[in-house]
């Protein structure tokens, strides 16, 4: 088999597929996607609910349908997808070591690499829930895979810790399959999922949401028998005397996602402690030239449509890198999160001779009403936008027009929220 490719994409989920299509459409000739699972599509395959694709396809698709659209596009563009293959390492010379059962160890030479490995779930260990270690405790995504792909029901009486979107989706899913979902417990005073999911996953089925509560004990030696929940104070410390016991056999954890950057760390890619993903330029290139990142490996998204859009930029960047369409760079502008902003992507913008407008993607650090988002360059205010509702669970974006980027004086962009 051939081992030389223009662009190699690590990961065949929504980010990888969209990046591959974009790389090919922008002129890269030989494009390869390496996927460890037995099919492409990544986590979309287990997200059987609808609501995907409203931005990109202007219709509501289920996860598998959304994946299928991109698999068809990739097939039409003659993109190679190597399944059942695990990438072990990448190096600065863009050599990829991978392994599968048919070919053994493969060493693939790429001209550009796009990292699209997605993210993984935080586990019980990551949040240190005390108590017994019986069966019946799952991350929400693992339960989703068991139920939706393998066809196993994971429990009958269920408590969900965390109000992230996967937890909310699973509350509805398990209810529809006949389980009693007794409660959804959230340590923050607000939900971390999309409002629409609170409405259509919890409220539709009368599932109570306990805000400012957490689990302080799990009881059950063989299988979970009950959990103890406690109210927390403003510092998220459990309040003594507020304990409630809930009898259940299953506990699902929906307590956050972490970009999966083992390969990135090994090759020396600079990571942002805020996003836990790579620091990227406006074209999604990392600090290692010719290595790009997109999707949840860079920052955790709430919408797959936005993953696809970001991946198109990474694919285009990689194709331009391979075709040596590099434009002379006038300067590099740094972008910083200011007050009430938890992170911003991209962290750096390269200003070239023909400046393009650049979009900033960011999240706020709490729930706010009637806030004003301000983008500044030093003392110069570039943009001011009012937003009626802001929440950490909903990614925001702002476009800086090229006319403003051309006239930067301080080259230090700060985005902040005034409340």
């Amino acid at each position, binding site marked *: 088999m051939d081992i030389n490719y223009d662009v190699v994409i690590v990961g065949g989920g929504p980010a990888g597929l969209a990046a591959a299509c974009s790389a090919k459409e922008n002129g890269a000739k030989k494009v390869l996607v390496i996927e460890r699972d*037995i*099919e492409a599509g990544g986590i979309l*395959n287990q997200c*059987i*609910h*609808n*609501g995907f694709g*409203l931005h990109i396809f202007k219709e*509501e698709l*289920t996860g*598998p*349908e959304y994946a*299928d659209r991109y698999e068809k596009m990739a097939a039409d563009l003659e993109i190679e997808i190597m399944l059942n293959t695990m990438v072990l390492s990448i190096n600065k010379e863009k050599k990829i070591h991978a392994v599968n059962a048919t070919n053994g160890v493969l060493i693939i030479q790429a001209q550009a690499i796009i990292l699209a490995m997605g993210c993984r779930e935080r586990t019980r260990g990551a949040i240190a829930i005390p108590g017994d270690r019986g069966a019946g405790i799952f991350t929400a995504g693992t339960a989703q895979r068991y*139920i*939706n*792909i*393998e*066809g196993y029901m994971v429990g009958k009486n269920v408590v969900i810790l965390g109000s992230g979107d996967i937890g909310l989706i699973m509350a509805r899913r398990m209810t*529809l*399959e006949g389980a009693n979902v007794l409660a959804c417990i959230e340590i923050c005073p607000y939900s971390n999922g*999309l*409002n*629409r999911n*609170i*409405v*259509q996953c919890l409220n*539709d089925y009368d599932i109570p949401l306990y805000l400012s509560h957490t689990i302080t004990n799990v009881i059950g030696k063989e299988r979970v028998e009950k959990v103890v929940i406690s109210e927390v104070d403003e510092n998220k410390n459990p309040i003594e005397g507020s304990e409630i016991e809930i009898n259940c056999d299953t506990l699902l954890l929906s307590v956050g996602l972490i970009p999966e950057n083992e390969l990135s760390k090994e090759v020396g890619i600079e990571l942002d402690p805020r996003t836990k993903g790579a620091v990227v330029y406006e074209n999604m290139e990392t600090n290692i030239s010719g290595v790009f990142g997109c999707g949840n490996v860079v920052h955790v998204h*709430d*919408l797959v449509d936005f993953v696809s859009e970001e991946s198109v930029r990474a694919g285009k960047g990689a194709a331009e890198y391979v075709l040596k369409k590099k434009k002379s760079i006038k300067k590099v502008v740094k972008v910083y999160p200011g007050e009430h902003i938890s992170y911003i992507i991209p962290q750096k913008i390269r200003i070239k001779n023909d400046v393009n407008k650049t979009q900033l993607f960011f999240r706020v650090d709490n729930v706010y009403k009637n806030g004003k988002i301000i983008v500044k360059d030093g003392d110069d205010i570039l943009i001011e936008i009012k937003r*009626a*509702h802001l929440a950490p669970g*909903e990614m925001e974006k702002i476009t800086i027009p090229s006319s403003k980027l051309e006239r930067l004086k301080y080259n230090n962009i700060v985005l902040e929220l005034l409340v």
Partner: protein
Amino acid sequence: MKEIICIVCPKGCHLQVDENNGYKVTGNKCTRGIVYGEKEVTNPTRVLTSIVPIEGGMYSCCTVKTSEDIPKEKIMEVMELLKNIKIKSPVNIGDIVISNICGTKSNWVVTKNM
């Protein structure tokens, strides 16, 4: 005046629906919000998704959805229909598993080629 959150898209607009004024919707950022707002107050509907066992597929289950949104009060009845259904590979996206579910114009259809 009813206050509801629009579930049509992830924006989650805060809608006000005025039952005493022809279900006039305000607070919407797009026209889909008007349709949703009135429907949610007069006849709320949802699209359902689930799985059915499949013989000869790459996995033991295949994913399905209702082709149209169905009345909210029929959700459990519509789910019940899938209980004894088993399908055979190959199936394609859009193939009908059960038609005309519970007297609605909706069908249970396949959402994955398998």
